[in-house]
């Protein structure tokens, strides 16, 4: 009987008509009335929110640091996000997301989301108090004003922000800093700086072909990149090329998921890719397979490069350095040189070495000398920022009048710095983001006393974690803006809840594909989450209330309006749209030639491809793509910490659905090496080096070379695992030219292993 009642009630609830009838009868009977002191309030049928009806569809985009930047269609019913799918209109997204993207509803609606501004009494104690936004802004503003009073500038306030959210309006965080005064900025990028410099020395810009044109390639070398894990949407173009008869070679120290799909696999010795590329170049030169016409018309310095090759490089030498057999080098070199078109996808992992930039230059040279640059299906593919020409309205803010700042060498620009920095008396102080810990410890005159963390998780992602924890002890206030508790929030004084992509207006593009997506606000922000724009406005309001004129950021912001303000004629023209509203019907693709550099008008000083680059010399490098030896190992094993498909850097790893398929972290070791150490599959082991140590389980697999240990980046929720306990902050060779600081040799790390 009880079950029948339950059923009947549920039927009544599910049908809008019967629901209304029920309410009517209750109201007529005078049964229901408002109650003083209660929480629930009377429901008016003319009230704003409609809780009946079909799905509302919104357009969103994944704003993560990922090649794919998927266009998303979000389905909302009753004001609640029900499910999402990849937009079918984008040929790149092609209607599908990835295993991370499909967990977005779970992120938005996790009971563990950071819900309110909170203050920790004693960093790391876990003793948190809930505070109002007003109280939070008050504490923060007062601290900022106190710093200004003490130092005469805001150089004691530092911002560390990177790629947690690439929605364009999120550059408001940098804008917010500028609107307060001249501050300290962690500048540079751990991601791709060496390669960016290399491509700039060679061609005058980093500008890749449309990835969708890989289907047209006749020969693809996937060099130090693992798209099967890290750019799943690109795989279909590789498969298409294969189906059309193209050959795919994967070069990677590890037999990756992508290697399993290739026609050939080379297990290159880590960091010797430059030697391998130069060896192939030497053979192509010897065989007379250089595209002489292309080289003569479109480049400078090839004769010097050829000379260098003849004097310094042989195939045998390249084979010895790289571990790839000479016979293979010779055959592939010839195949690559004769295939038309041929392309190389240069991965970011490949350049995370002390010789990373030099390695990329050598690979670029291989593509150029075979005449494959500027061709559909060709190209030295790395990345681009071609579609990022927005107004950056949220970013460009003036410092308050009378602000004092850094008078040293002009502040460096990061690669995502789209502000038109002119010459100024003062500037921000730039510190190397890749040496955050050391820079915080060393900064003086004034010292850094306050840190604002947004779109970044330094305690998970920054190198030499122990040093960073030490550096943070000197900070008087740490403000962290985030969605979930992590190792950075753990050490915060104040945490501010930020919106997910479904709860804010913004616009998104990719650094790999050529699509533009609008990101509409699909649902009301959960709890008290605010977007970074709203946070900037709130801080400015409080700053100006306490000290008029102390912050130039507007205090009232319509975030939808500010999204619209990002659009300009350039964007409309590039994408062939009349207004941002066109994007409500779906994402749009840039109307460009699929091949970058198709006009062969390079942006170098000579306007040609520069095998010999004077700019490189200016920045302390060799003019030619000469071989640079790898970092000398200081421990028996190479330690690689590549990206996992279970997370985007520190995001998604902590989602409970992800734990179902990725329940615990491992160190991967080759069975031969394991045998020598007496380690069996599943054994608890210690991985250790001069930076720190880690205790975890070992997994045996021969896809890892015998001299290598592999651990996936970077942390694991509710687990002390963090690869940065073992990774130091040694610089890569390049990066300072275009990104403000050299990169990090993330994969030039070494360690030993023993049974625990």
């Amino acid at each position, binding site marked *: 009987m*009880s079950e029948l*009642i*339950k059923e*009947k*009630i*549920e039927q009544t*609830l*599910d049908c809008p008509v019967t*629901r209304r009838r*029920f*309410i009517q*009868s*209750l*109201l007529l*009977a*005078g*049964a*229901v*009335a408002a*109650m003083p*002191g*209660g*929480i*629930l*309030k*009377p*429901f008016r049928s003319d*009230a704003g*929110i409609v*809780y009946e009806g079909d799905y509302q569809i919104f357009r969103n985009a994944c704003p993560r640091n990922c090649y794919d930047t998927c266009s998303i269609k979000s389905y909302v019913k*009753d*004001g*609640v*996000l029900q499910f999402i799918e990849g937009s079918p209109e984008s040929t790149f997204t092609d209607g599908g997301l990835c295993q991370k993207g499909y967990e977005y509803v*779970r992120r938005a*609606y*996790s*009971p*563990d*989301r*950071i*819900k*309110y501004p*909170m203050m920790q*009494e004693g960093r790391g104690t*876990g*003793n*948190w*108090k*809930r505070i*109002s936004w007003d109280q939070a802004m008050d504490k923060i503003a007062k601290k900022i004003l106190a710093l200004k009073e003490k130092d005469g500038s805001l150089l004691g306030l530092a911002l560390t922000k990177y790629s947690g959210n690439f929605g364009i309006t999120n550059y408001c965080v940098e804008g917010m800093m500028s609107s307060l005064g001249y501050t300290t900025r962690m500048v540079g990028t751990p991601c791709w700086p060496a390669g960016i410099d290399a491509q700039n020395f060679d061609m005058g810009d980093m500008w890749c072909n449309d990835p969708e044109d890989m289907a047209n390639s006749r020969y693809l070398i996937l060099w130090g990149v693992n798209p099967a894990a890290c750019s799943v949407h690109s795989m279909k173009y590789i498969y298409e090329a294969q189906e059309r008869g193209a050959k795919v070679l994967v070069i990677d120290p590890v037999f990756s998921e992508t290697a399993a799909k290739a026609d050939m696999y080379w297990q290159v010795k880590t960091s010797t890719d430059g030697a391998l590329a130069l060896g192939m170049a030497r053979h192509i030169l010897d065989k007379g397979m250089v595209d002489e016409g292309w080289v003569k018309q479109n480049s400078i310095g090839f004769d010097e490069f050829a000379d260098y090759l003849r004097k310094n490089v042989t195939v045998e030498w390249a084979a010895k350095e790289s571990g790839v057999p000479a016979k293979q080098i010779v055959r592939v070199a010839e195949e690559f040189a004769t295939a038309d078109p041929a392309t190389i996808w240069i991965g970011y992992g490949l350049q995370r070495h002390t010789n990373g930039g030099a390695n990329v230059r050598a690979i670029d040279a291989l593509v150029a000398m075979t005449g494959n640059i500027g061709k559909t299906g060709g190209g030295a593919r790395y990345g681009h920022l071609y579609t990022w020409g927005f107004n950056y309205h949220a970013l460009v803010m003036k410092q308050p009048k009378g602000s004092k700042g850094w008078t040293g060498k002009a502040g460096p620009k990061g690669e995502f710095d789209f502000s038109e920095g002119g010459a100024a008396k003062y500037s921000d102080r730039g510190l190397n983001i890749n040496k955050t810990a050391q820079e915080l410890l060393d900064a003086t005159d004034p010292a850094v006393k306050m840190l604002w963390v947004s779109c970044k998780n330094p305690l998970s992602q920054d190198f030499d974690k122990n040093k960073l924890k030490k550096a943070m002890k000197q900070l008087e206030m740490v403000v962290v803006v985030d969605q979930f*508790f992590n190792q950075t*929030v753990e050490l915060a004084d104040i*945490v501010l809840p930020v919106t997910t992509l479904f709860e804010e207006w913004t616009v998104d593009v990719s650094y790999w594909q050529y699509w533009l997506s609008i990101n509409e606000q699909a649902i*009301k*922000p*959960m*709890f*008290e989450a605010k977007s970074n724009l709203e946070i900037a406005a709130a801080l400015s309001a409080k700053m100006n209330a306490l000290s008029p004129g102390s912050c130039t950021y507007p205090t009232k912001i319509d975030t939808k309006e500010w999204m619209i303000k990002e659009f300009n004629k350039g964007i409309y023209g590039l994408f062939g749209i009349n207004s941002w509203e066109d994007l409500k019907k779906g994402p749009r693709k840039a109307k460009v030639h699929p091949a970058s550099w198709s006009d062969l008008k390079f942006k170098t000083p000579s306007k040609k491809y520069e095998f010999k680059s004077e700019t490189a010399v200016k920045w302390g490098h060799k003019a030619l793509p000469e071989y640079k030896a790898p970092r000398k190992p200081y421990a028996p094993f190479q330690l690689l910490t590549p990206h996992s498909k279970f997370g985007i850097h520190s995001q998604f790893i902590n989602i409970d659905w992800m734990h179902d398929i990725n329940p615990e972290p491992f160190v991967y070791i080759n069975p031969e090496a394991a045998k020598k150490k007496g380690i069996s599959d599943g054994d608890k082991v210690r991985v250790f080096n001069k930076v720190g140590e880690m205790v975890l389980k070992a997994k045996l697999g021969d896809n890892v070379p015998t001299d290598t240990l592999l651990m996936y980046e970077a942390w694991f*929720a509710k687990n002390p695992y963090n690869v940065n306990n073992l990774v130091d902050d040694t610089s890569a060779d390049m990066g300072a030219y275009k990104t403000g600081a050299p990169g990090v040799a993330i994969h030039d790390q070494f360690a030993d292993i023993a049974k625990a």
Partner: protein
Amino acid sequence: MINEEKALLRATSLRDFFIARDAPEMADAYQSLIKSVKTAAPIPADWKDIEFAFNRLFVGPNSLPSPPFASVYIDSEPQIMSPSTIRIRQIYGMLGLTSPYEGSLPDDHLSLELDASIHFKTALNRNDSAELRGLWRYFLVDHLGLWIPQFVNRVLSTKGVPQAILFAVNQLKDWLKEEISAVPTVEQVNL
């Protein structure tokens, strides 16, 4: 205070306790709760520690051992804003009520549901009807009765929970038990 008043005070105190934003609000609600029951209650020395523990259990910023949202316990996936949350929203609507949070706080937060329970009792007192009895029975037995015991168990099995919070949670458990024992019978619900 007569029984009915005390019962109402207990329900409102529990409601206010579990949605308290800071130590003073927790202390106020707790004071009212003590007044409403016969059981001897622990008197906290320092409400600051209670506040820290309260946030650890029910608010954040770390992951919660005992989230105070029904859907986490009764829907197929432990998340908020699930189908059962919409059901609760519909039930509020049936009573002519809506949450002022408009979805930014899940409708099935413990305190909103306690508030709804108070409305139900008031409505039943004012004008009893079979429909109302049926709806209340459903809400109490087929919803609150399903998730609150799980929620209570989560708190009771967490280490280091202060006595005051344990007391409040046990009072919640008692409240539920008493309400269920007094719920309209199947025969009294004539649908």
